[in-house]
């Protein structure tokens, strides 16, 4: 590297010693500096000015670059490569974490779906069972059968036959006289006085005319009532009359008594 200082190029030792013994030198340096500052424009001054302008420009640009650029702008290639490698390793880790979490999420969603499906099935099962056991009201298309019995000759046997025919035809809910819900536990028996036109349904008296409401396929249910030798013929042979009307909106509001099991337990 060329020396910036022309001339003797003295080492530090001589420098340290020189100014002290010669009293002539210090005013010399100051005068020269002042002289240079006051000097008329010359080629040397211009060249020095251009070079110093270059130096100032480069220094300012570098300072700006260091201050404003990203911290990696001045980094060396090795450092950058290392940085890049550690970053891509971190990215790999994050990606595998992401995949794991996505798997977990999918599994959770799947189990949630399964649970929701099971819940829905259980709900519909519950509804079906509630209707079957008569603990909730029911509505739907069906038929209304009115049995008039002026002579008091229609008994529990006939009504039981009617209920059985309706069940055979797929009735999903049956009710007698808007009062007695017919379920699996329901029993029918004749009243104390048959000619009185009274029946006992689940221990409650039911009087003629008997109105049976059944929810199910209207066509099938009607067929089940009017077929030859069926309910209609049976009741008319006893001296009564049967009228059947179909409706799209049969309302069954009565509830069966709460089943009360004392002895039975589910077998495992």
């Amino acid at each position, binding site marked *: 590297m060329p020396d*910036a200082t022309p001339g003797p190029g003295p080492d530090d030792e001589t420098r340290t010693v020189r100014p002290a013994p010669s009293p002539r030198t210090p005013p010399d340096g100051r005068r*020269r500096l002042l002289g240079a500052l*006051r000097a008329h424009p010359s080629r040397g*001054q211009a*060249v020095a000015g251009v070079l110093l*302008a270059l*130096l*100032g420009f480069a220094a300012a640009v570098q300072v*700006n670059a260091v201050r404003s650029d990203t911290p990696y702008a001045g980094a060396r290639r090795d450092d950058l490569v290392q940085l890049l490698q550690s970053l891509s390793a971190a990215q790999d880790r994050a990606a595998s974490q992401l995949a794991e979490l996505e798997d977990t999420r999918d599994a959770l969603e799947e189990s949630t779906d399964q649970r929701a499906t099971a819940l829905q099935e259980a709900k519909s099962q519950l509804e079906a069972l509630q209707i079957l056991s008569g603990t909730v009201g029911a509505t739907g298309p069906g038929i209304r059968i009115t049995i008039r019995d002026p002579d008091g000759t229609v008994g529990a046997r006939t009504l039981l036959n009617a209920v059985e025919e309706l069940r055979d035809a797929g009735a999903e809910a049956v009710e007698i006289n808007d009062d007695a819900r017919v379920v699996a536990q329901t029993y029918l028996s004749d009243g104390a006085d048959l000619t009185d036109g009274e029946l006992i349904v689940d221990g409650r008296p039911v009087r003629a005319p008997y109105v049976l409401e059944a929810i199910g396929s209207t066509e099938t249910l009607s067929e089940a009532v009017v077929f030859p030798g069926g309910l209609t013929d049976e009741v008319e042979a006893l001296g009564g009359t049967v009228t059947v009307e179909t409706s799209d909106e049969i309302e069954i509001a009565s509830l069966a008594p709460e089943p009360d099991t004392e002895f039975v337990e589910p077998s495992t």
Partner: protein
Amino acid sequence: MIALLGLVVGVIAGLFLEPSVPLGLQPYLPIAVVAALDATFGALRALLDGIFDEKVFVISFVSNVLVAALIVYLGDQLGVGSQLSTGVVVVLGIRIFSNVAAIRRHLFHA
């Protein structure tokens, strides 16, 4: 006087134009600036010694910058770029300190 003016003009231009450093020059610019500083302090000391010569100043300035950049470039090619540039900065820093010491003696007699 003109030299001082040039320095001020350069700094102002660098601050206000805010040019971006070309990518290829980025490793060399800081070293080049330090080398140019060394040349400048050497020139100031020569001025106080009364032996300033503009031709020597120009040549030393340019060659200082070029050699410093060359050393850094070589270091990069050899894989010891950061160590070599540290070494260049240390050497130039020592020279700047000794030159400043000489200037101080001239101006303050101390």
